[in-house]
């Protein structure tokens, strides 16, 4: 069992550091490089939402990223202190729609749901807590 946490401000420039943190975790847990992609994608999608939609007063939202590897499964947790928001409440996009009618709303969370095995949301105190997990061979 390996578990690592990192806390940052919810501003665009922090994404690169979070990606590097995830990649370091990946190496430390000796996981195959190609398995990191769904987690890097999910991390960006969740973090971008927090950056775009959340502020605490005029300050950026504090964000915590947790990564754990246990029993063949990676679990990624993103906590943010922004306004209550359950991304799983967003309607899935119509992925069958033609080009002219195709929107991009809800596409990020849709990708997360498709690429992860399990996704869950909880509001805990003043934080949104999104947990995503997937077995990594």
């Amino acid at each position, binding site marked *: 069992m390996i578990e690592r946490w990192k806390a940052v401000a919810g501003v*665009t420039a922090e994404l690169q550091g979070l990606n590097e943190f995830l990649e370091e975790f990946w190496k430390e847990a000796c996981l195959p490089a190609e398995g990191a992609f769904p987690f890097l994608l999910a991390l*960006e999608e969740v973090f971008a939402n927090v950056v775009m939609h959340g502020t605490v007063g005029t300050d950026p939202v504090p964000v915590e990223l947790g990564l754990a590897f246990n029993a063949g499964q990676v679990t990624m947790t993103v906590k943010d202190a922004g306004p209550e928001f359950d991304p799983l409440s967003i309607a899935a996009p119509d992925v069958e729609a033609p080009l002219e009618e195709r929107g991009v709303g809800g596409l990020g969370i849709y990708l997360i749901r498709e690429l992860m095995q399990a996704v869950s949301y909880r509001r805990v105190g003043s934080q949104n807590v999104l947990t995503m997990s997937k077995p990594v061979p």
Partner: protein
Amino acid sequence: MNATFDVVEGLTLVNPVGRLDFEASAIFQKQMEQVIAEAAGRSSQPVLVNCAALDYVSSAGLRVFLVAARAAKSAGIRFSVCALTASVKEVFDVSGFSRIIDVQADLDSAKGVLAASRSA
């Protein structure tokens, strides 16, 4: 991410390199809009995005492809992407974008298809 734009063999070839994430997507979208406007002014030449060196795309990056494909369609320009890397292909497939955007296997076959469509 960075991208080069070459006008070659009667088409505009776009070569994005690196990660197309939410930070990179705004500028790439502006560049693509410019490329499509210029291609429309050159006898509606096709625009081909060679994704061989594009390692990563998120929903923000997909939005650029969607906007570009729509702009090309309304300008009467053929718009294709080719040579998707494994993770980019996965995102195109899962999102359904493989069905609404013309995806060619590799650069040579894409050039062939585009040349055939021009002479047809």
